[in-house]
């Protein structure tokens, strides 16, 4: 084992242990926040695979998050599935839609890719509103507490919910870390660095990019399904453009192309809005100023700057 690998395992292992231990000493309010943050950070990690590691900027990831959310929610309300099976259905729905959208959107690149993904997500949002008799449109619907059970465990219980959020975050983290350290992950990074060169080494870059879209969509859908089942609400606002911009912001703030960036960015943004809204009603002004400062002084994001300045080994 190289010295760098030891440092990587040490740092990331410590973060995972802190997240586990936090549930025992955090006050109830922050305990609930952190559970929510871990699910949203899972969404950001899915986004980061595509944006940070493959170099594809999507503006339509809310579609995948919502596919997981509604796949899970409609699975329960329309097909009578249990919570576990409904989450699986949500993930399959997200990955399936990712496969389809990826095959179409990857015919474009750069700004056109951003626009096409945005348009697909908007179409998804409108479809949710259009089929209001099933989705309850703008209003959304609540998943009853009695239905939020997995193996007899009540997911609405704060302790169980925290543990479930932690498990999902762990699973996504470990799988993505493994993918990014594999040959497939290295090829994705190669495509981000220089697509033409990757092609001239014999790689079918379209196929790899498509694989990245499907995996990214699947992880985003997992987060969406988990969010719905853990917090009990399925609503169209999660399919809006705002939820496509959020993961981009979280990843940019935390550090695109770093494993811990999505978590750090999500925590930072969540508490920035939470704390500033306690000070003034114009909290978005404070949030905006802080974001501008960060963009000016830490353009690589928080973890990206740490990597540039101190921890060159950070993956």
């Amino acid at each position, binding site marked *: 084992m*190289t010295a*760098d690998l030891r440092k990587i395992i040490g740092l990331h292992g410590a973060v995972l242990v802190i997240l586990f231990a936090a549930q025992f000493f955090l006050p109830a309010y922050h305990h609930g926040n952190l559970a929510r943050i871990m699910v949203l950070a899972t969404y950001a990690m899915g986004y980061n695979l595509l944006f940070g590691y493959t170099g594809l900027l999507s503006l339509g990831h809310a579609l995948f998050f919502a596919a997981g959310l509604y796949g899970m929610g409609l699975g329960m309300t329309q097909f009578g599935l249990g919570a576990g099976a409904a989450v699986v259905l949500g993930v399959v729905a997200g990955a399936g839609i990712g496969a389809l959208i990826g095959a179409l959107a990857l015919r474009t690149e750069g700004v056109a890719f951003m626009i096409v993904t945005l348009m697909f997500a908007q179409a998804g949002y409108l479809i949710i509103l259009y089929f209001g008799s099933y989705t309850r449109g703008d209003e959304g619907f609540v998943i009853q507490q009695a239905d939020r059970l997995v193996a007899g465990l009540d997911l609405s219980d704060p302790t169980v919910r925290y543990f479930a959020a932690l498990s999902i975050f762990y699973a996504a983290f470990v799988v993505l870390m493994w993918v990014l350290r594999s*040959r497939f992950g*290295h*090829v994705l*990074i*190669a495509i*981000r*660095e*220089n697509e*033409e*060169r*990757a*092609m*001239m*080494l*014999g*790689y*079918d*870059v379209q196929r790899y990019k498509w694989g990245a879209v499907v995996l990214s969509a699947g992880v985003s859908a997992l987060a969406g399904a988990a969010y719905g089942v853990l917090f009990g609400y399925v609503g169209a606002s999660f399919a809006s453009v705002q939820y496509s911009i959020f993961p981009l912001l979280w990843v940019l703030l935390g550090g695109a*192309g770093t494993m811990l960036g999505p978590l750090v960015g999500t925590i930072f943004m969540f508490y920035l809005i939470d704390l500033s809204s306690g000070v003034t009603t114009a909290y978005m002004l404070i949030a905006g100023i802080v974001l501008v400062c960060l963009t000016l002084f830490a353009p690589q994001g928080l973890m990206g700057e740490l990597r540039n300045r101190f921890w*060159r080994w950070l993956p």
Partner: protein
Amino acid sequence: MLKLEAVNAGYGRAQVLRDVSFEAQAGEITCLLGRNGAGKTTTMKAIMGVLPLMSGAVRLGKTVLSDLPAHVVPRHGVGYVPQGRRLFGDLTVGQNLEVGRFSQCESESTLEEILQLFPRLRERYAQRANTLSGGEQQMLAMGRALSLRPSVVLLDEPTEGLQPSMIAAIRDVTETLRDQGVAVVLVEQRVEAILALADRAALLENGRMRGVVSGEALRDDPTILARHLGV
């Protein structure tokens, strides 16, 4: 071996190459000579398939490379070392070589051969590519292309901007490749390197072929170089 037949290619509507034809034989270094803008790099890209041909053909043995998608061309044994190296800067030396090793068969022996060819890469194996010196980056760019065990290697100005010791090392490797039976196509601007290495030279001017001359003819008549490189 590698054969270009009346290749016409360009960017969009702007045609750059007009009826370019030449051959590169196994165990020889074929220099592609021409002034800036003559179409040397465009020729390389046309061979690699990243620039679609308007007409003509690129053949490797019996395979028509120009009929294949760009990502399939390297799998037929054509390695390309681009001008300016263009490494994957965030990956380590080892990871760059691993990504270069598309075909996973005989991978370990290939890796060992590359590290023997470039001992410096062994020392820098776990280091990120964007922290290497210019010469080391060039070695890695060559090593990455050789990971495919190519039968044809295209080198686009491999010694550009390097210090003399590195230039000598790159030149040694180029000669080793030739001695191993690889067909080397070399774009080079430095006169002494061309004179020392070229077995033959294809002369390009404004995207058109101005003939093919042997290495001896170049060495006997330096005015050929003066006319085609403007030196």
